[in-house]
């Protein structure tokens, strides 16, 4: 995949992969599919993946994006891995609360707090 097609910025912190969205709006179906594929590749590279997804740049996201996050969560769980979310804008956090996905995901205010929570 050409570098310019990536929708995520990733870095590693110890054994944790930290992924950040490049787009402020996670609404476009093709981009969401690409994000799902990129996150799946990260998860499938490790026998017990540790993944932190930071929403620090995100202003809007759609239910399709939530669906992709759930699919990734299921894949991480299937490998006995750990997934954390962080830096979610209050308006977007409300979307997680309305859909009760704040109960499904481990969400932290900051990436630092999320990184400390990995076992």
């Amino acid at each position, binding site marked *: 995949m050409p570098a310019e097609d990536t929708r995520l910025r990733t870095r590693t912190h110890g054994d944790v992969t930290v992924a950040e969205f490049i787009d402020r709006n996670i*609404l*476009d*179906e*093709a981009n969401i599919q690409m994000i799902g594929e990129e996150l799946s590749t990260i998860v499938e590279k490790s026998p017990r993946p540790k993944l932190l997804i930071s929403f620090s740049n995100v202003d*809007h996201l*759609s*239910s*399709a994006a*939530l*669906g*992709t996050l*759930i*699919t990734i*969560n*299921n894949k991480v769980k299937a490998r006995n891995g750990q997934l954390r979310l962080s830096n979610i804008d209050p*308006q977007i956090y409300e*979307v997680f609360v*309305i*859909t*009760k*996905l704040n*109960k*499904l995901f481990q969400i932290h205010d900051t990436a630092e707090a999320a990184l400390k929570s990995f076992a």
Partner: protein
Amino acid sequence: MTPTPSSQPDSGRVRLPYERAGVDSAVGSILAAAGRHGYTDASKFALRLAVEEAMANAHRHGHRGKPDDAPILLEFRVTDREAVVTVEDTGPGFDPAGVPDPTLEENLERPSGRGLMLMRAYMTSVTFNERGNRVTLVYRRPAGRA
């Protein structure tokens, strides 16, 4: 600078395929109208979320099996008091009562089915025509707030 709310309604009607540039432009027109009428950022967030979900549903579900460029009809009317947006697809329609509650424990890990509940959570009312291929979103501004 806060714009002076306009007393003249803003309205628009466009038929467009589900393609990002077109959707962004159409949603942008609605948000610009909301801005002219003094809607807050929170109100605009709610409107954007609901309209995006309605457009995505029209494409993903309403137009399932149809060409990617099947047109969606989007109409809006924004006044100082409320915004009304209708989204109509050319599909056979669906029964909104048949959509399972995505917040039930047993459905929490299902990746789909949240668009409609989000529209209902953020809008004052969400109604469908009898055929189920046209949704009307009504957002009434909270009383006493900008």
